[in-house]
Protein backbone atom coordinates (compact mmCIF):
# COMPACT_ATOMS: atom_id res chain seq x y z
CA UNK A 1 0.00 0.00 0.00
CA UNK A 2 1.47 3.33 -1.01
CA UNK A 3 0.41 6.10 1.27
CA UNK A 4 -0.34 9.54 -0.01
CA UNK A 5 2.26 12.04 1.08
CA UNK A 6 1.20 15.34 2.56
CA UNK A 7 2.85 17.11 -0.33
CA UNK A 8 0.64 15.19 -2.72
CA UNK A 9 -2.46 15.55 -0.70
CA UNK A 10 -2.26 19.20 0.13
CA UNK A 11 -1.41 19.94 -3.47
CA UNK A 12 -4.04 18.09 -5.42
CA UNK A 13 -6.80 15.72 -4.49
CA UNK A 14 -6.91 12.31 -6.15
CA UNK A 15 -9.45 13.15 -8.79
CA UNK A 16 -7.61 16.36 -9.56
CA UNK A 17 -4.40 14.43 -9.92
CA UNK A 18 -5.92 12.12 -12.48
CA UNK A 19 -7.34 15.11 -14.34
CA UNK A 20 -3.92 16.75 -14.09
CA UNK A 21 -2.32 13.70 -15.66
CA UNK A 22 -4.81 13.77 -18.53
CA UNK A 23 -4.08 17.45 -19.05
CA UNK A 24 -0.35 16.78 -18.93
CA UNK A 25 -0.68 14.11 -21.60
CA UNK A 26 -2.74 16.46 -23.76
CA UNK A 27 -0.18 19.22 -23.22
CA UNK A 28 2.64 16.86 -24.08
CA UNK A 29 0.89 15.81 -27.27
CA UNK A 30 0.06 19.38 -28.28
CA UNK A 31 3.55 20.60 -27.48
CA UNK A 32 5.12 17.72 -29.29
CA UNK A 33 3.41 18.91 -32.41
CA UNK A 34 4.26 22.59 -32.07
CA UNK A 35 7.61 22.86 -30.35
CA UNK A 36 10.16 20.14 -31.05
CA UNK A 37 13.05 19.50 -28.68
CA UNK A 38 12.45 19.24 -24.89
CA UNK A 39 8.89 17.89 -24.66
CA UNK A 40 9.50 15.41 -27.45
CA UNK A 41 12.37 14.12 -25.32
CA UNK A 42 10.15 13.93 -22.27
CA UNK A 43 7.57 12.00 -24.30
CA UNK A 44 10.28 9.54 -25.35
CA UNK A 45 11.23 8.93 -21.73
CA UNK A 46 7.57 8.65 -20.69
CA UNK A 47 7.02 5.95 -23.30
CA UNK A 48 9.92 3.93 -21.89
CA UNK A 49 8.59 4.40 -18.36
CA UNK A 50 5.10 3.21 -19.26
CA UNK A 51 6.49 0.18 -21.13
CA UNK A 52 8.59 -0.65 -18.09
CA UNK A 53 5.54 -0.45 -15.86
CA UNK A 54 3.44 -2.71 -18.07
CA UNK A 55 6.22 -5.27 -18.51
CA UNK A 56 6.86 -5.37 -14.78
CA UNK A 57 3.17 -5.95 -14.02
CA UNK A 58 3.09 -8.81 -16.52
CA UNK A 59 6.27 -10.27 -15.09
CA UNK A 60 4.98 -10.24 -11.51
CA UNK A 61 1.59 -11.62 -12.55
CA UNK A 62 3.26 -14.57 -14.25
CA UNK A 63 5.13 -15.33 -11.04
CA UNK A 64 8.46 -13.65 -11.84
CA UNK A 65 10.79 -12.80 -8.97
CA UNK A 66 12.32 -9.32 -8.63
CA UNK A 67 15.94 -9.23 -9.77
CA UNK A 68 15.73 -12.38 -11.90
CA UNK A 69 17.76 -12.22 -15.08
CA UNK A 70 14.43 -11.93 -16.89
CA UNK A 71 13.10 -9.11 -14.71
CA UNK A 72 12.01 -6.50 -17.28
CA UNK A 73 12.97 -3.79 -14.80
CA UNK A 74 16.59 -4.59 -15.64
CA UNK A 75 16.02 -4.27 -19.36
CA UNK A 76 14.27 -0.93 -18.98
CA UNK A 77 16.83 0.25 -16.47
CA UNK A 78 19.44 -0.27 -19.19
CA UNK A 79 17.42 1.62 -21.80
CA UNK A 80 16.75 4.54 -19.47
CA UNK A 81 20.31 4.69 -18.22
CA UNK A 82 21.59 4.63 -21.78
CA UNK A 83 19.37 7.62 -22.45
CA UNK A 84 20.82 9.39 -19.44
CA UNK A 85 24.39 8.63 -20.50
CA UNK A 86 23.70 10.08 -23.93
CA UNK A 87 22.45 13.40 -22.59
CA UNK A 88 24.14 13.79 -19.23
CA UNK A 89 26.87 16.13 -20.47
CA UNK A 90 24.82 18.48 -22.60
CA UNK A 91 21.46 18.36 -20.87
CA UNK A 92 22.05 16.94 -17.43
CA UNK A 93 19.32 19.08 -15.87
CA UNK A 94 16.70 18.74 -18.59
CA UNK A 95 13.47 17.26 -17.21
CA UNK A 96 13.78 14.31 -19.61
CA UNK A 97 17.31 13.44 -18.46
CA UNK A 98 16.32 13.81 -14.81
CA UNK A 99 13.22 11.64 -15.32
CA UNK A 100 15.25 8.96 -17.12
CA UNK A 101 17.88 8.96 -14.36
CA UNK A 102 15.41 8.74 -11.50
CA UNK A 103 13.32 6.07 -13.19
CA UNK A 104 16.36 3.99 -14.11
CA UNK A 105 17.46 3.95 -10.46
CA UNK A 106 13.92 3.26 -9.29
CA UNK A 107 13.81 0.18 -11.52
CA UNK A 108 17.10 -1.08 -10.06
CA UNK A 109 15.57 -0.63 -6.62
CA UNK A 110 12.46 -2.57 -7.67
CA UNK A 111 14.71 -5.33 -9.00
CA UNK A 112 16.48 -5.27 -5.60
CA UNK A 113 19.86 -4.77 -7.27
CA UNK A 114 21.14 -2.64 -4.43
CA UNK A 115 24.87 -2.73 -5.09
CA UNK A 116 24.33 -1.79 -8.72
CA UNK A 117 22.02 0.99 -7.54
CA UNK A 118 24.73 2.33 -5.24
CA UNK A 119 27.34 2.15 -8.01
CA UNK A 120 25.12 4.10 -10.39
CA UNK A 121 24.16 6.67 -7.76
CA UNK A 122 27.89 7.20 -7.19
CA UNK A 123 28.26 8.40 -10.77
CA UNK A 124 25.86 11.32 -10.22
CA UNK A 125 27.60 14.63 -9.63
CA UNK A 126 26.82 16.39 -6.33
CA UNK A 127 24.63 18.99 -8.06
CA UNK A 128 22.84 16.64 -10.41
CA UNK A 129 19.23 17.81 -10.63
CA UNK A 130 18.11 14.20 -10.18
CA UNK A 131 19.27 14.07 -6.54
CA UNK A 132 16.05 15.51 -5.22
CA UNK A 133 14.18 12.35 -6.25
CA UNK A 134 17.11 9.94 -6.06
CA UNK A 135 17.13 10.45 -2.28
CA UNK A 136 13.67 8.91 -2.14
CA UNK A 137 14.90 5.91 -4.13
CA UNK A 138 17.92 5.46 -1.85
CA UNK A 139 15.72 5.78 1.26
CA UNK A 140 13.40 3.13 -0.11
CA UNK A 141 16.33 0.84 -0.93
CA UNK A 142 17.82 1.39 2.54
CA UNK A 143 14.50 0.62 4.18
CA UNK A 144 13.96 -2.55 2.13
CA UNK A 145 17.49 -3.85 2.62
CA UNK A 146 17.59 -2.59 6.24
CA UNK A 147 20.96 -1.02 5.53
CA UNK A 148 21.15 2.75 5.85
CA UNK A 149 24.94 3.05 5.82
CA UNK A 150 25.28 3.93 2.14
CA UNK A 151 22.48 6.49 2.27
CA UNK A 152 24.02 8.14 5.31
CA UNK A 153 27.55 8.33 3.89
CA UNK A 154 26.26 9.54 0.51
CA UNK A 155 24.12 12.21 2.13
CA UNK A 156 27.04 13.29 4.36
CA UNK A 157 29.19 13.68 1.25
CA UNK A 158 26.51 15.64 -0.62
CA UNK A 159 25.82 17.93 2.33
CA UNK A 160 29.46 18.98 1.95
CA UNK A 161 30.01 18.84 -1.79
CA UNK A 162 26.75 20.08 -3.29
CA UNK A 163 26.27 23.76 -4.09
CA UNK A 164 22.50 23.71 -4.56
CA UNK A 165 21.07 24.59 -1.11
CA UNK A 166 18.04 22.41 -1.74
CA UNK A 167 20.19 19.33 -2.30
CA UNK A 168 22.28 20.20 0.77
CA UNK A 169 19.18 20.67 2.93
CA UNK A 170 17.65 17.46 1.68
CA UNK A 171 20.89 15.58 2.29
CA UNK A 172 20.96 16.73 5.94
CA UNK A 173 17.31 15.86 6.32
CA UNK A 174 17.89 12.37 4.96
CA UNK A 175 20.76 11.84 7.41
CA UNK A 176 18.36 12.68 10.24
CA UNK A 177 15.66 10.44 8.85
CA UNK A 178 18.06 7.53 8.34
CA UNK A 179 19.45 7.77 11.89
CA UNK A 180 15.94 8.06 13.26
CA UNK A 181 14.87 4.91 11.43
CA UNK A 182 17.87 3.09 12.87
CA UNK A 183 16.80 4.39 16.33
CA UNK A 184 19.94 6.51 16.75
CA UNK A 185 17.92 9.41 18.11
CA UNK A 186 20.89 11.52 19.22
CA UNK A 187 22.34 11.68 15.73
CA UNK A 188 18.86 12.10 14.27
CA UNK A 189 18.26 15.11 16.52
CA UNK A 190 21.60 16.63 15.55
CA UNK A 191 20.89 16.31 11.85
CA UNK A 192 17.33 17.66 12.10
CA UNK A 193 18.59 20.54 14.26
CA UNK A 194 21.19 21.33 11.60
CA UNK A 195 18.47 21.46 8.93
CA UNK A 196 16.49 23.93 11.06
CA UNK A 197 19.51 26.14 11.78
CA UNK A 198 21.08 26.06 8.35
CA UNK A 199 18.04 26.07 6.10
CA UNK A 200 15.37 28.07 7.95
CA UNK A 201 12.06 28.66 6.23
CA UNK A 202 12.39 25.65 3.94
CA UNK A 203 10.06 22.69 3.69
CA UNK A 204 12.88 20.56 5.14
CA UNK A 205 13.19 22.80 8.20
CA UNK A 206 9.46 22.55 8.82
CA UNK A 207 9.50 18.76 8.51
CA UNK A 208 12.61 18.56 10.69
CA UNK A 209 10.81 20.53 13.42
CA UNK A 210 7.88 18.12 13.24
CA UNK A 211 10.22 15.15 13.51
CA UNK A 212 12.09 16.68 16.46
CA UNK A 213 8.76 17.14 18.26
CA UNK A 214 7.83 13.55 17.46
CA UNK A 215 11.15 12.24 18.78
CA UNK A 216 10.56 14.15 22.05
CA UNK A 217 6.84 13.91 22.63
CA UNK A 218 5.16 11.31 20.45
CA UNK A 219 6.73 8.07 21.64
CA UNK A 220 4.70 5.06 22.66
CA UNK A 221 3.76 5.33 26.32
CA UNK A 222 3.95 9.12 26.40
CA UNK A 223 0.78 11.11 27.07
CA UNK A 224 -0.91 11.96 23.78
CA UNK A 225 -0.92 15.72 23.16
CA UNK A 226 -4.13 17.25 24.48
CA UNK A 227 -6.46 18.98 22.07
CA UNK A 228 -10.00 20.31 22.10
CA UNK A 229 -12.07 20.92 18.98
CA UNK A 230 -15.63 21.21 17.79
CA UNK A 231 -16.91 18.33 15.66
CA UNK A 232 -18.86 18.64 12.41
CA UNK A 233 -21.97 17.83 14.45
CA UNK A 234 -21.23 20.83 16.66
CA UNK A 235 -20.11 18.92 19.77
CA UNK A 236 -17.13 20.09 21.81
CA UNK A 237 -14.72 17.23 22.36
CA UNK A 238 -11.29 16.97 23.94
CA UNK A 239 -8.86 14.14 24.38
CA UNK A 240 -8.95 14.68 28.14
CA UNK A 241 -12.70 14.13 28.01
CA UNK A 242 -12.10 10.62 26.68
CA UNK A 243 -9.99 9.49 29.67
CA UNK A 244 -11.03 6.00 30.66
CA UNK A 245 -11.77 5.08 27.06
CA UNK A 246 -9.64 3.69 24.28
CA UNK A 247 -9.38 6.28 21.51
CA UNK A 248 -8.71 5.69 17.83
CA UNK A 249 -7.66 8.80 15.94
CA UNK A 250 -7.97 8.44 12.20
CA UNK A 251 -6.34 11.12 10.10
CA UNK A 252 -7.91 10.91 6.68
CA UNK A 253 -9.30 12.77 3.70
CA UNK A 254 -12.05 12.31 1.15
CA UNK A 255 -9.69 12.63 -1.82
Amino acid at each position, binding site marked *: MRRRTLEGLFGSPGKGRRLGLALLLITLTVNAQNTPAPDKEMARVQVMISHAKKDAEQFLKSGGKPGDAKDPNLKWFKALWKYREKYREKQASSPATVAATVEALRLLNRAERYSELRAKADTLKPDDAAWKQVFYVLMSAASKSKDYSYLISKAEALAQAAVDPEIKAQARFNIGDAYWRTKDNDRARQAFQAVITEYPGTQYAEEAEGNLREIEFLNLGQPAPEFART*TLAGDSISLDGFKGKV*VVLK*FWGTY
Partner: protein
Amino acid sequence: MAEVPLLKELYAQHLDQGVVVVGISLDEELKPLQEMVTSKGMSWPQIHDADKSLVKLFNVKGTPTYFLIDREGKIAAKDIPMKRLGTAIDDLLRK
Protein backbone atom coordinates in the same frame (compact mmCIF):
# COMPACT_ATOMS: atom_id res chain seq x y z
CA MET B 1 -11.83 4.68 1.12
CA ALA B 2 -11.70 0.88 1.17
CA GLU B 3 -11.07 1.06 4.91
CA VAL B 4 -14.32 2.78 5.84
CA PRO B 5 -16.45 -0.41 6.04
CA LEU B 6 -13.76 -2.07 8.18
CA LEU B 7 -13.61 0.86 10.53
CA LYS B 8 -17.40 0.96 10.68
CA GLU B 9 -17.49 -2.68 11.69
CA LEU B 10 -14.76 -2.16 14.23
CA TYR B 11 -16.60 0.85 15.64
CA ALA B 12 -19.85 -1.06 15.91
CA GLN B 13 -18.16 -4.03 17.61
CA HIS B 14 -16.44 -1.94 20.24
CA LEU B 15 -18.93 0.86 20.78
CA ASP B 16 -20.22 -0.49 24.07
CA GLN B 17 -16.76 -1.48 25.30
CA GLY B 18 -15.55 2.05 25.81
CA VAL B 19 -13.86 2.62 22.48
CA VAL B 20 -14.08 6.00 20.76
CA VAL B 21 -13.23 6.70 17.14
CA VAL B 22 -12.45 10.26 16.11
CA GLY B 23 -12.04 11.13 12.45
CA ILE B 24 -9.70 14.02 11.71
CA SER B 25 -10.09 15.16 8.15
CA LEU B 26 -7.36 16.97 6.28
CA ASP B 27 -9.71 18.12 3.53
CA GLU B 28 -9.33 21.67 2.35
CA GLU B 29 -13.06 22.03 1.76
CA LEU B 30 -15.80 21.26 4.25
CA LYS B 31 -18.48 20.27 1.75
CA PRO B 32 -17.02 17.03 0.27
CA LEU B 33 -16.20 15.98 3.84
CA GLN B 34 -19.75 16.53 5.06
CA GLU B 35 -21.12 14.71 2.04
CA MET B 36 -18.91 11.67 2.50
CA VAL B 37 -19.54 11.45 6.24
CA THR B 38 -23.26 11.34 5.45
CA SER B 39 -23.14 9.08 2.41
CA LYS B 40 -20.84 6.50 4.05
CA GLY B 41 -22.72 6.68 7.33
CA MET B 42 -19.69 7.45 9.51
CA SER B 43 -21.35 7.88 12.86
CA TRP B 44 -18.24 8.68 14.91
CA PRO B 45 -17.21 12.28 15.65
CA GLN B 46 -15.46 14.14 12.85
CA ILE B 47 -13.07 17.05 13.14
CA HIS B 48 -12.22 19.19 10.15
CA ASP B 49 -8.56 20.03 10.62
CA ALA B 50 -8.65 22.82 8.05
CA ASP B 51 -5.69 24.70 9.52
CA LYS B 52 -3.67 21.46 9.84
CA SER B 53 -3.01 22.20 13.51
CA LEU B 54 -3.73 18.60 14.58
CA VAL B 55 -1.63 17.30 11.67
CA LYS B 56 1.21 19.38 13.06
CA LEU B 57 0.54 18.36 16.67
CA PHE B 58 0.74 14.66 15.78
CA ASN B 59 3.35 15.10 13.01
CA VAL B 60 1.15 13.28 10.52
CA LYS B 61 2.86 12.72 7.19
CA GLY B 62 0.19 11.10 5.09
CA THR B 63 -3.27 9.57 5.09
CA PRO B 64 -4.66 7.39 6.36
CA THR B 65 -2.77 7.48 9.66
CA TYR B 66 -4.13 5.85 12.81
CA PHE B 67 -3.16 6.62 16.40
CA LEU B 68 -4.32 4.48 19.25
CA ILE B 69 -4.59 6.02 22.72
CA ASP B 70 -5.09 3.97 25.87
CA ARG B 71 -7.50 4.60 28.74
CA GLU B 72 -4.94 6.75 30.55
CA GLY B 73 -4.45 8.99 27.54
CA LYS B 74 -1.09 7.51 26.58
CA ILE B 75 0.00 6.75 23.01
CA ALA B 76 -0.42 3.00 22.56
CA ALA B 77 0.28 2.83 18.83
CA LYS B 78 1.08 5.27 16.08
CA ASP B 79 0.95 4.84 12.35
CA ILE B 80 -0.63 1.41 12.84
CA PRO B 81 -2.15 -0.29 9.78
CA MET B 82 -5.92 -0.79 9.74
CA LYS B 83 -5.59 -4.56 9.67
CA ARG B 84 -3.77 -4.58 13.02
CA LEU B 85 -6.05 -2.06 14.68
CA GLY B 86 -8.68 -4.55 15.88
CA THR B 87 -6.18 -6.76 17.68
CA ALA B 88 -4.41 -3.76 19.19
CA ILE B 89 -7.73 -2.44 20.55
CA ASP B 90 -8.60 -5.83 22.02
CA ASP B 91 -5.19 -5.97 23.69
CA LEU B 92 -5.78 -2.57 25.29
CA LEU B 93 -9.28 -3.53 26.44
CA ARG B 94 -7.88 -6.61 28.20
CA LYS B 95 -5.46 -4.53 30.23
